[in-house]
């Protein structure tokens, strides 16, 4: 892999990001309402206050002018500030990022830890009882939307059994083991909801991709050499079967951020997703732009990571 390749990929991302930002900005500008809408129906706030605020934040300028302002500032590294909280957008996003990454990361790890072994084992003995059960569960898993499983879990574990809290707190008090225990308790449900959903769809991909590889001649050769089933699976099958799975996981990462928006709302996880929802609802353009820009950046980044991982998994793939 060369530096030139990386550079080319990054340069290609720039027009994509620009296009995304233009579309986003236009859509947001066309959407009804403004961040000070709540003031309108308040008889104690004179209309002039709202007008002054709109003028102060430049909301009365034409859309293209506002976009250029935003773009120039963005190129200088200034993400702007939220109309609603008057805090810098980058501060807001950085504040939310750790929680999102922790929850999403944990759920991805959970998904992969379930999907890879289950998928490979199911492929090793296709149409066995294990395969049937795994398949059925996977179907159920990815057919149920996260908002439904989330509510089910809350009803069962928080309300019926009263084992787990269903309000996520970013500032959990305590230290040491008590803190980790509390963190675990409050994270189990959101992580499980996201992880099982992801895992369920991954299982089917791992299974089909492993089944393709198992049929190949070199696997038969390895078997006929007398290498044990275990070693054949781990050494020869899994590594090759993982290539399409890596693409899938990488490309799904941004989607998971999207799925996390709903899960974050249900469990009150203060992540990027809930920030996005709140800012969309209050027409807070700079924050919506900032967050969606981060998402767009993530898509580009994970695509790149997927390509790099290919090279590692299969040295035959060259980068030019």
């Amino acid at each position, binding site marked *: 892999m060369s530096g030139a390749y990386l550079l080319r990929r990054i340069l290609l991302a720039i027009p994509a990001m620009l296009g995304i930002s233009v579309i986003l900005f236009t859509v947001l500008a066309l*959407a*009804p*309402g*403004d*961040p*000070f*809408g*709540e*003031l*309108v*129906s*308040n*008889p*104690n*706030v*004179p*209309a*002039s*206050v*709202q007008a*002054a*605020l709109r003028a*102060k934040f430049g909301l009365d300028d034409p859309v293209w002018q506002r976009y250029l302002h935003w773009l120039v500032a963005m190129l200088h590294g200034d993400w702007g*500030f*939220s109309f*609603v*909280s*008057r*805090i810098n957008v980058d501060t*807001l996003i950085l*504040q*939310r990022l750790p929680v999102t990454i922790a929850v999403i990361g944990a759920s991805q790890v959970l998904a992969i830890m379930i999907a890879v072994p289950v998928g490979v084992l199911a492929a090793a003995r296709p149409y066995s009882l294990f395969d049937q059960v795994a398949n059925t569960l996977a179907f159920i898993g990815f057919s149920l939307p996260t908002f439904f499983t989330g509510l089910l879990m*809350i009803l069962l574990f*928080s*309300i019926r059994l*009263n084992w787990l*809290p*269903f*309000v996520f*707190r*970013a*500032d959990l008090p305590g230290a040491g083991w008590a803190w980790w225990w509390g963190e675990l308790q409050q994270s189990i449900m959101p992580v499980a909801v996201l992880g099982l959903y992801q895992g369920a769809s991954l299982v089917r991909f791992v299974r089909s991709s492993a089944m393709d590889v198992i049929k190949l001649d070199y696997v038969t050769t390895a078997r006929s050499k007398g290498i044990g089933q275990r070693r054949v699976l781990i050494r020869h099958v899994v590594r090759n079967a993982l290539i399409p799975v890596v693409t899938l996981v990488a490309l799904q990462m941004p989607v998971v951020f999207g799925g996390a928006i709903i899960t*974050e*709302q*249900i469990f*009150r996880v*203060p992540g990027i997703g*809930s*920030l996005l929802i*709140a800012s969309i*609802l*209050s*027409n807070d353009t700079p924050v919506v732009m900032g967050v969606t820009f981060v998402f767009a950046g993530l898509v580009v980044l994970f695509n790149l990571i997927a390509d790099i991982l290919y090279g590692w998994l299969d040295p035959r793939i060259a980068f030019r």
Partner: protein
Amino acid sequence: MEPQELKGIIGQVKRGRMSRRAFINRMLAVGLTAPMATQLLAIGGVAMAQSASPYKPTKAGGGGTLKLLWWQGPTLLNPHFAVGTKDQDGSRLFYEPLAAWNSTGDLVPILAAELPSTENGGLAADGKSVIWKLKKGVKWHDGQPFTADDVVFNWSYAKDPATAAVTAGSYNNIVVEKIDDYTVKVVFSKPSPFWADAFVSSNGMIIPKHLFENFSGDKSRDAPTNLKPVGTGPYLFKDFRPGDLVSGVINPNYHQPNRPYFDAVEMKGGGDAASAARAVLQTGEYDFAWNLQVEDEVLTRLEAGGKGEVRVTEGGSIEHIQLNNTDPNVEVDGERSSIKTKHPTLSDPAVRQALSLLVDKDSVHKYIYGRGGAATPNFIFNPKRFASTTTKYEFNVDKAIAILDKAGWVPGPDGTRAKDGKSLKYVFQTSINQPRQKTQQIIKQACKKAGIEIEIKAVTASVFFSSDVANPDTYPHFYTDLQMYTTGPIQPDPGLFLQMFLSTEVAQKANKWQGRNITRWQSPDYDKIFHESETELDPVKRAAQLIQLNDLAINNVVVIPVVTRPSVAALNKQLKCELSGFDSYIWDYANWYKDV
């Protein structure tokens, strides 16, 4: 009761011949109720009773963490920038006003040493100024003393157009002078019977001069204290994550003895109202949840969990139907519903009367809102001192039919009544919101029986309630025949709010639909009484005037009140607190405690 007679009784209280309690009871008997009565005494020269809440804890602290669940979390902590109540509440955790409104709509001093009254010289006889005496020995969280300079600073900060403070409306038309370190004088440009606006309640929270004076006007966004409030309240600021969490720890130097009871406070945001109710009522994870716009049936079921209870607090908000006085289907000079037109059918008083008989308020209350909405005949129904006793409501289809028959509206072949080629067909709009659509259905069915055809229209809330000049579907445009939404006076004084029927306030293209009069009803009688009430210092006469204004709007069926919209909160069974429908949910939270 005659004003003269009343003055005599007030005199008796003044001379000590009658107790305050006896006076209030007598006022209750004539339908004036406690708040009005105490206000009467204040202006009649008897000091208002300083609220003596039954606060049991004998020392500060020891109560653990007070956990508040605001399903829309505060996004900023400067009270002068607070866009919604969530931000006002977040700021209220640390900042305090001079005085606040309690549950009955009475004023309670917080940072004021006493309430201004005629007796203590606080209220000028001409009604043009108020003198506030500040509590001594109050310290900001950083140890600096709280003085009159801070109060004066808040006025100059909020009224500066460059600051673009949301609270500007309370400070624009007054002048604030420092008399000494602990006395300030508020001067009005004209006699002001309602003087408790500046420095009171949510618009009156005081921010410290020494931390904000360099960040006034254009630089207001740069103040570091915007994010790390330094107030006078019972808890010191600890952490703030916009939209998610605000937390504080006990203020050991709080200016009220033995308070607060809790060691820390946290206000968690996010999620939805129903699950917030669940977290208080069913699992007990939180102590208090605000603004539970959840079906009453669901709340009742959650309450069975036994961990908490639902508290309904009546404010002044009312769900009401507006009748358009102008023609929404004719365009004049580029605007529909132009004040130059007259509605072809709704201008007939008989039709308006019939419509008001066709709104089944009791069913709306019983089957849709439950505890969250009681039927009322009045537009101004709370505080009780401003509620008319002469109005009444009834649901009577037969009577409506009789009225329409008599006025010559005869049913056509499709059952819809018409006269002179004009038929009773109306478009009825409101925002998309399940209870509202159910209410629309109830009204539509009743109207159908009486031969009035209603076409239901529902607009997305973000459009309906926006100020977008270009969008014809907003409620200030009112380009339909009927519309329904909730509004109400935010303070326990409806004076300012009743502007919404003034002839000069008509919402139209010329003022970008920012006028308050959306029904475009015009009445010289109403205007005259309103202007008289603006400078009327005799509270009894003024209350009578405001009640007359309400009656004019009701009797002319300018609006049809449907149900009241009280605030609904869920609280832990052990939590003791007084809530107010006229102020923040946490107006008094220094006095909250748990009875364990």
